[in-house]
């Protein structure tokens, strides 16, 4: 077990290091921050001074060496845009994204398992067809388009919820509802497929012959065995959400890590980009570890 975790951590650390190197050099190719933050008529001395202050004057390799040695002391550098430690900014944004992702995935998982199981119980029936088609439509919809249409209908037209921003509980409804749709469509399909396989197995027939209620058969006997592929997909979808739902966060003005990422990339705020990548990569690593542990909880035959 410990060996398994250690091996995984080493592999992830290597990937993370390669990633930081790639992002460090590639992000500097997007242009000079001095050209962006200073007015057009700024003199060359002012630009030079700006670069000096933010350590952008030295050759890129020297900058990289300094960044790595700072990083070794857990110093992620300062944001150019906000003149604050980049790590603080990222953690604040990540907390928002984490809440959004957790709530959305909890709702998606619960709803998809119930609907997918019921669809599989009478495979080919009317309910199954309705569930399949509607989940396919959900999986096909571009989320930003759904977001725009939802704003027009529910915020502008009906006036039920605010259009964007944060503050009250009502602000959470639309982003969560829009983010819900695509993972839900995908996971319903996977649950349905896995449940059809599980329900046609011998132990379900035995349980049925013994007179176990169908509810108990679906949700106790079959579901546990159908969960393995489902958890894999849930993990993939949760990882996508943790990376920040860039478009949805932008449309709804949600201060999450996805919006922070796109803003920082466009504003050439390199330290924030790097810190955001490292924080989300760590979170996804931890989540994948939890998923591996969930595998062995669900299926004792899997040992790491």
């Amino acid at each position, binding site marked *: 077990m410990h060996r398994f975790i250690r091996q995984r951590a080493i*592999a*992830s650390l*290597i*990937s*993370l290091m*390669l*990633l930081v190197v*790639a*992002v460090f050099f*590639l*992000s500097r*190719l*997007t*242009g000079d921050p001095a050209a962006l933050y200073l007015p057009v008529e700024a003199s060359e001395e002012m630009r030079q001074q700006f670069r000096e202050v933010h350590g952008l004057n030295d050759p890129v390799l020297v900058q990289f060496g300094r960044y790595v040695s700072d990083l070794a002391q857990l110093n992620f550098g300062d944001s150019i845009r906000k003149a604050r430690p980049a790590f603080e900014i990222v953690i604040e944004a990540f907390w928002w994204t984490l809440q959004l992702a957790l709530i959305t995935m909890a709702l998606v998982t619960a709803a998809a398992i119930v609907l997918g199981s019921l669809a599989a119980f009478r495979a080919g029936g009317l309910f199954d067809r309705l569930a399949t*088609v509607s989940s*396919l*439509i959900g*999986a*096909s*919809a*571009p*989320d*930003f*388009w759904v977001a*725009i*249409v939802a*704003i*027009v209908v529910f915020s*502008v037209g009906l006036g039920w919820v605010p259009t964007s921003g944060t503050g009250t509980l009502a602000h959470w409804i639309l982003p969560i509802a829009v983010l819900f749709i695509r993972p839900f469509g995908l996971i319903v*399909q996977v649950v349905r497929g896995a449940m059809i396989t599980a329900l046609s197995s011998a132990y379900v027939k035995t349980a049925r012959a013994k007179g176990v209620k169908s509810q108990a058969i679906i949700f106790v006997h079959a579901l546990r065995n159908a969960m393995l592929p489902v958890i894999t997909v849930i993990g993939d979808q949760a990882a996508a959400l943790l*990376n920040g739902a*860039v*478009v949805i966060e*932008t449309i709804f003005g949600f201060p999450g890590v996805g919006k922070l*990422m*796109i803003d920082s*990339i*466009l504003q050439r705020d390199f330290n924030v*980009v790097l810190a955001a*990548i490292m924080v989300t*990569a760590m979170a*996804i690593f931890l989540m994948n570890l939890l998923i591996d542990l969930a595998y062995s909880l669900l299926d004792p035959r899997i040992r790491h």
Partner: protein
Amino acid sequence: MTQIDVIPDEPKALIRFARMLWADKFALAAALFLCLIFVLALIGPWLLDAAAQKQNLRGRNAPPFDWERGWIWILGADALGRPLLARIVVASQNTMTVAAGAVLGSAVIGTVLGLVAGYAGKRTGLVIMRLADVIMSFPSLLLAVVVLYILGPSVLNLVVVLAITRIPVYLRTTRAEVMEIRERMFVQAAKVMGASSPRIIFRHILPVVLPTLMTIATLDFAFVMLAESALSFLGIGIQPPEITWGLMIAQGRQYLTTAWWLSFWPGLAIILTTLSLNLLSSWMRIALDPTQRWRLEMRASKNEVKP
């Protein structure tokens, strides 16, 4: 008198697939719709480019379903009075080119790398897999911005960005399948008979992996379309005056409350196309799988008996 049962010859593959497609009406509709989009993307710009470019300031944000103006205005007009129907048709070419190019590029590169990673030694495989990990966790937005700044915005560059980000999908699938297939008897037999590695990989292993890859590619086509429209929507994809469906949604966003149709129709075009791809992909999963195929063939023969 003995009755001789004539066992009909196995029908040709094309006819068999046509029958299986006929058996699944959803997949049939999806295939027909995709054919239509394909034809539109091919000849649409040539037919309607002039109409899609011509500004008409008196018809700004003209509402849809106004029969008096002529069929091309049926979906309304955009903020410069250009007919939306013509623009959607013209934009389909860019949208489809980007998606098809990205899927083709990532599928070919990913499959070749996956074949190598699965068949070659452990060390090569490990290096390739770490590379895939890095690509997977690399923010595609940053990649898009970097390419946009260095190479400039163009259809080809967007294809490159999207292709790179989708390589790991094919790589991982191919590698996993190859690791299993290489242990099978026919591969061992080919090896014993002295077949070279390239021959084994491309003649013996690849045909077995191909159905899975085709299914994934169809599904991924939908994903890439959504990704392209998201990038164009954020302003780091295709730049005007070029148009794609995603860009049309973005351009209509500021007129949301007064002219919903500007964003609505291109979004509907995206949904219908991706939905068709999803339906076709789930049909392919069954039709290309020899152990599942009977489900569709049964239904096809049942249809024949019924009037």
